[in-house]
């Protein structure tokens, strides 16, 4: 598997459980931005292992992984032959679209950048905006989000899936 290889992808396929975990994290941390990754086996484009991170900036308008935790995460992924398939964070007062800062700082060309907006309902129940993007060389391309029913086995051929909606209870 060549490093830096970017495979054409127009859709993020993500398990319901992982989707729900990201949304719950965003709601919990509101009004601060929440952030984290979903790691998966290198080259498979399957986000499987949800890893919420602490927002060291603790800010409603900025997020940053703590540098020591970032190293721990990357060493762990390296040991497990994983890569960050999804890098997610939330916007708490604006739409779920990458800002100029988000674009300028995006440093994982193979990742799906997921943005969740908690602007509408904050910590409470209610729909969030959940969108996904590729950010490569400063260019943003939105992609479809396909939420898969969680499987018991880890096969790569899910039987039927529904296109994710932005609604969550």
């Amino acid at each position, binding site marked *: 598997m*060549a*490093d*830096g290889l970017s495979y054409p992808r127009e859709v993020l396929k993500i398990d319901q459980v992982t989707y729900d975990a990201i949304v719950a994290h965003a709601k919990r941390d509101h009004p601060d*931005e929440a*952030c984290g*990754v979903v790691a998966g086996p290198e080259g498979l484009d399957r986000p499987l292992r949800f890893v919420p*991170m602490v927002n060291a*900036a603790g*800010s*409603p*308008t*900025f*997020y*940053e*992984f703590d*540098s*020591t935790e*970032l*190293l721990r995460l*990357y060493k762990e992924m390296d040991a497990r032959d994983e890569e960050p398939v999804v*890098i997610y*964070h939330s*916007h*708490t*007062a*604006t739409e779920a679209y*990458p*800002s*100029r*800062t*988000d674009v*300028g*700082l*995006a*440093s*994982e*060309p*193979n990742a799906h950048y997921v943005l969740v907006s908690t602007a509408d309902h904050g910590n409470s129940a209610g729909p969030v905006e959940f969108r996904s993007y590729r950010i490569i060389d400063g260019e943003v391309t939105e992609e479809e989000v396909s939420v898969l029913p969680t499987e018991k086995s880890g096969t790569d051929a899910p039987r039927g899936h529904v296109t994710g909606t932005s609604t969550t209870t």
Partner: protein
Amino acid sequence: MAIDVRIPTILRTYTGGEKAVTGEGSTLAELIDDLESKHPGIKERLIDGSELRRFVNVYVNDEDVRFTGSLGTEVGDGDEVVVLPAVAGGAPTAWVAVP
């Protein structure tokens, strides 16, 4: 002397795709100059003027160099240096200088 340097995906264009390279130097600044001589262009991705770039993290033996003297951090044979871009971002209202 050999110092092992781990290179993140986004900088592997400078190292011919290699995820690890070796370098020499007695400080991080010297090491980066040595890397630049072998992999031209990489220094500018790490250093802005005379400082380590804000959103580039460098670790020597698992310690963030911002706690150990930044570019003045001493390095030596057998040390492991890891470079990781920060994972960060902000909402449109954030004012952040992006390198």
